[in-house]
């Protein structure tokens, strides 16, 4: 059996009410947060009309730290966002055609899910990923020779 990307095999998986009822998670656009001179990062995610997906669905931070996130709901329905952040998760309502902000503090490396926890937005596609790249601080690493990785 050969395998091929989801989009080529069954494009209907990455739209609403196509092959499945909702849209397969984490199969949307990817985008990078911008780093400012002070090390803080900034990004915008949107909810497009009738797509029920965060755009970008995968947001990439170059390293851990503070992210100023702009959230824009271009959809014709009300959604919301529950976002990971050290201290407490951040919640915001996003009524039709609204714009809000969130400040997130994330360690990384690793990735975190966030979603719109209303109805089943989460299952329909409004579950996005925030990827944090980089490494832990040097003084937290093991004292050993460099090891092979997968």
């Amino acid at each position: 059996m050969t395998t091929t990307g989801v989009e080529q095999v069954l494009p209907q998986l990455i739209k609403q009410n196509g092959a499945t009822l909702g849209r397969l998670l984490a199969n949307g656009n990817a985008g990078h947060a911008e780093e400012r001179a002070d090390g803080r990062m900034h990004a915008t995610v949107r909810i497009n009309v009738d797509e029920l997906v965060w755009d970008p669905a995968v947001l990439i931070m170059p390293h851990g730290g503070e992210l100023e996130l702009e959230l824009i709901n271009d959809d014709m329905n009300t959604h919301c966002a529950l976002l990971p952040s050290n201290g407490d998760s951040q919640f915001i309502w996003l009524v039709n055609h609204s714009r809000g902000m969130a400040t997130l503090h994330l360690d990384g490396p690793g990735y975190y899910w966030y979603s719109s926890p209303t109805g089943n937005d989460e299952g329909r596609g409004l579950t996005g990923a925030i990827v944090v790249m980089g490494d832990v601080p040097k003084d937290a690493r093991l004292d050993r020779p460099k090891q092979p990785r997968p």
Partner: protein
Amino acid sequence: MAEATEYVDAGRAVDQATLTFVTGSAPPVARNVTYERILRARSEPHNWLTYYGAYDGQRYSPLEQINTQNVRHLTPAWVFQCGATGLQAGATTYAFEAAPVVVDGVMYVTGWDGWCWALDARTGEELWRYKHAIPFDVSLCCGNVNRGVAVAHGKVFYTTQNAHVIALDATNGKPVWDKAFGDVRAGESATVAPLIVKDLVIVGSSGGEFGVRGHLDAFNFETGEHVWRCYMVPKPGEPGSDTWPKNGEAWARGGANCWITPTYDPELNLLYVGTGNPAPDFDGEVRPGDNLYTDSMVAVDADNGQIRFHYQYNPHDVWDYDSISEHILFEMDGRKAMAHFDKNGYCFILDRTNGQLIRVFPFVDRITWGDIDANGKVTPKVFPDKEGDPVHFWPGPAGGKEWTHAAYSPKTELLYAPVQDIGATATRRRREFKESIPYWGAGVQVDAEDIAGSISAFDPRTGNEVWRWRNHVPMCSSVLATGGDLVFAGEPGGNFNAFNARTGEMLWQFQCGSGHHSSPTTYSVGGKQYIAAPSGWGGWVEGFVPGMLGAPHGAALFVFALPD
């Protein structure tokens, strides 16, 4: 698309806690918790000041309001629940494994996935919460779990699954400092409840199934400054390094993690640290030698992190017999002793001034991996030494007793252990090491049938079993002993039980709806004694009771008291 200026202003995202009844404020009771108070923790039995209740790890409280005569009237006083929200690491394996700490009417307790709460210990009202964001993809050997907090000098300390140690303001849960002490890219994580000793916060690393190098770390509690690190596998040239292959890097992946809170003798200024399995767990051929200081009691100087002496329970372990379990400190015939129930099925009584063996005796019925004689000589008999050849042995890798803690009552002078009588089959399968990938060196299947368990009481002077309460499945929650001559322990099936500490007779039982894999504690507020029991089945269930992988998956803290 409309212009940005036309958007409805949704404002700024808010803390999720603001959408609850959480007040965000707790009384400043932790301000005066000092090292001196923790030293004398048992003199204020209304509190449970530190992970084990006191430095000696006895998990004993002198409280006696609830006793053998009235325990049958015990009823729930309140229940605290949280549950899971959204997608979280270990979505199916999270468990409630903590030991609630109580200071003058305020309870501090951790959950899974970075949760830490302050609760009113009388009513269960949530006073504040702190939620650390945990990466979904963090390496977790045994579930999304955490074992609790330390409290001192107005701060609450705990570790996170992505290997940070965090100090919170005990009055509002706001972070004071936050330090990473492990490398998640190497497969390290943290689950341990910290221990306060003098001006230090002591924590240890998890990750023994990923081929890391275990370590114990100390931070200044006020500033978060890193004070010392003690590696539990020596580098080439260091003492103990001759127990590892001369060539290659087996030592660098050697394991020996310290994922359970140490006990502490203030007179000797020694931490008694139990260390985890070597890596790879079951393939010993790639690491010939005793592999110090894996599967050992390591006595560590609390001031500088230097190893003073050790006792290795499983030289060259090939059964995954971590020796992380507690070392219970007690006096026996004028001698400073300590007791340790090892995964290998034997209980060791050691002299804690020098690590010498006083007594060793089996505490579980079936032990087939080998035996240990009265002098401590270890003779392995059954182990996975041939590639592809299945080998069955008792106890399985979860051990005759897992990490969940035994107790000692100075009143009855008995030890009480949660016992698991369960075997496993391991088939050696060599694999190359890759950082962050599980490094077991075997395929392992733990028995789902022909299993048993018990709460068993032992006389440490003789090694004799005094009583046993039998269960049809392994017992894998910590035991709590009280001055009311009671022993409390939860079952995998959700029952929380009280036993007569002298006879083992079951006196009371309450079904909590989900299994127990945690550490119950006791305290009193306003003269009323409470028993706190976290209930929430999960973690490494495939290791200790795979036949209960489908059991109800709750997440609730039950607190019991006598009716007014």
